[in-house]
């Protein structure tokens, strides 16, 4: 049961890698956010249900609703609907995703097993998200897609956080979420400015500062 959510997370990761339409990618992200929000509920937190519930709710709201909404608005404002010519094609991206997955499992296997984890593949999934996020940022041209990639990366870290929620106290959790939110907010503003003054949000053309 526990593993199921993580498997779903992996699959959404692949879906994300293969999606060229931004709207779809944002929705995938929203799905991820919801899945992430569920993870804390899997654990066996006697007596901490209040805390766990509130964390789950907040992350559900922010990652599942607020951020996707905001990103969609930014997408409409910058009038970019599709990731046109990524450096690495979508099919190839999914292949890279497989490599990433392998690397993640290898990395996770190097680290000693932690008994209190809700699922043994949690570590691997979080590394997988880390690599996928980095890869998407590196291989996509649109600034907005890069933000999405950043969020995937962030989700990777977050998997650790929620899978091990008790370690990260409520306030920190909140701070992290707030920071991510503001980061995306500021990025959105900058994307807006980029689309205004460059007539596009292709970041590969943002390369005047050299040397």
């Amino acid at each position, binding site marked *: 049961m526990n593993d199921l959510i993580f498997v779903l997370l992996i699959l959404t990761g692949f879906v994300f890698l293969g999606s060229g339409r931004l709207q779809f990618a944002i929705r995938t992200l929203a799905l991820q956010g919801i899945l992430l929000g569920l993870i804390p509920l899997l654990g066996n937190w006697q007596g901490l249900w209040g805390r766990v519930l509130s964390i789950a709710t907040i992350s559900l709201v922010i990652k599942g609703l607020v951020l996707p909404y905001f990103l969609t608005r930014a997408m409409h404002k910058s009038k970019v609907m599709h990731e046109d010519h990524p*450096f690495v094609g979508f099919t190839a991206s999914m292949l890279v995703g497989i490599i990433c997955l392998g690397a993640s499992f290898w990395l996770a296997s190097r680290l000693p097993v932690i008994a209190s984890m809700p699922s043994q593949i949690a570590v691997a999934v979080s590394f997988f998200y880390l690599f996928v996020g980095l890869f998407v940022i590196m291989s996509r041209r649109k600034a907005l897609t890069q933000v999405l990639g950043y969020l995937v990366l962030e989700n990777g870290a977050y998997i650790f956080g929620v899978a091990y929620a008790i370690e990260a106290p409520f306030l920190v959790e909140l701070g992290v979420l707030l920071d991510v939110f503001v980061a995306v907010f500021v990025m959105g503003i900058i994307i807006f400015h980029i689309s205004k003054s460059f007539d596009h949000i292709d970041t*590969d053309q943002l*390369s005047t500062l050299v*040397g």
Partner: protein
Amino acid sequence: MNMILAALIVMLVGGFGALLVRSIPKIANSLGLGGAVIGAVAGIVGAISVLLSPHAVNSLRVPWSVPFGSFYLAVDSLSAFFLIPVFLLTGLAALYGAQYIWTPQFKPMIASHWAYYNLLAASIVMVLVARNGVLFLVAWELMALASFFLVTMEHDKVSVQRAGWIYLASTHIGTTVLFFFFILLGTKAGSLDFDRIAAAGTQIHPHATLLFILALIGFGSKAGIVPLHVWLPEAHPAAPSHVSALMSGIMIKTGIYGIIRALMWLGPPSVSWATTLIVIGCVSGILGVLLALVQHNLKRLLAYHSVENIGIIFLGLGIGVLGQATRLPVLVVMGYGGALLHTLNHAIFKGLLFLGAGSVLHGAGTLDLEQTGGLFRRMPWTGIAFLTGAIAICGLPPLNGFVSEFMIYFGAFHAIQSNAALSALPAVVAIISLAMIGGLAAACFTKAFGIVFLGEPRSLQAAQAHESGAWMRWPMAALALLCLIIGLSAPLIPAMLEPVVTEITGFSLSSLPNLSKQIQSPLSLVLVVSLIFGGLIGALAWFRFFRLRGKSKSQTVTWDCGYATPTSRMQYTASSFAQPLMALSVGSMLLKKHIIKPLGFFPEDGSFNSENPDFVEGRFWKPSFKGVEWFLLRFRWMQTGSIHLYILYITVTLITLLIWKLW
């Protein structure tokens, strides 16, 4: 000690005081000058009193809050000996400088000039009295920076900018090596205070050779040994002349001071050190004089002579170290003594020559040898002063240069006469080098003096040259007189130098009465013969005067094989004077010729000129710098502007570290 501290304070107050009243150049000038001169006088008194009573306590130690630092000053006889020329030249060059910079071109910078000048003098003094590594390095770098700003005073000129950069770069490299030197010493001795270093002999001795090499490079770059000399010929011509005098006369001597100080710490030296010193001296001396010979710029020429004289000092040090290594007191006394005396002498005559060159620049507006000529009639004071300096630097009796070179010769001959073959060889090298340097130096200075001051002016500005003012003349006269005085006080010199040599080596002269006589009598006889020589000249002059009295002395043009109207353009030039020697000694490797041949039936003006770039710079330093540049530029592609690539760097770094550390 108190006097020297007072001198330091007076100098700094004068210098920075001048900065405060910068809006009134006249007051700034007198304030800066006053500080330098009063400080110099106080300092000389202080230094001499230390030399006279070497056993008095002359130190000051104040805790200092910087890491490894302590504000520890002391004056021993070695410091005091070096302090004398420092203060002497500072004062005289300041007097000269006060008038030299009183020109429209320098006037806006007068205040800052004095601030830097006095700071330079004060930092040199600090270098000599500092007894802590950190304090020493701070003073050392202050000295470099102050002199850098003086060198670049006329930084509107491209040549000065280049000179400034080269100077700054080379001094920094030298200082970096000194960092290693002092840190290594401090690590072994457990402290950077000099007394602790000196006491930590046994910890230091195993690393002595490494430390010796570091000291040679670090201090040698300041002293200007080949191949670290490249900044000298750039910086000296760029600086105002009295500053060149100060830099060449005393600042580069701090390098010598440093090496001697290092030798005091590093324990019993070996013959190989002596050989190293002598080889460096030989190379620097000969290359210095050869390169001097081909220069067209008077101050550049003098700068190369500084390289040469540093070579001579190294030869002396080498002989002294050889004496220590083979336990021969005569060598020690004559080697170290000769080196020390030559240090003092060089300060005096090189100071004098640079002041003379400045006077030429001031009066004739050029330092280009090919533009001068005939200045002796127009600038008699400068001419005589320069001539005195030239005779002294060539090591000719009865002036001071001869005495110090004689001492080094003497020591070296002793080494030959009484040593085993292996240790005699360095001495042989030293003698031959000295002889060669002597001959070439004479050639060079006959050229310098002859071309600049004798014959006919080669340009209009030289023809219209005028003598400098009294403030510039008297310091030159004083230095010229000092050349003679030291030359004539030859017999007193071993006694004067004894405390210093004892301080350095521990060899006591007074404990060897026989030795003292062995050293004393030649120097006395040198004086006697010199005096006879002077008397003979007088007699001949009298005889000549007597013979010519009442005879007709007709004036005519110079005999030019029947050609009745020779012009100044037909004179021998500096380049042609030096050509045979150059062609012989280094072939055409160095020479760059720029020829425009007259062509056709009605040729345009042809021209020929040649220059001799410093091949150490051209063949060694330039390629090394180019190499580093090339290497660094190989990595320039990294900052492409592509954010994707940037993130790739992060990813790769992360993955590499993970794989490396978790494998």
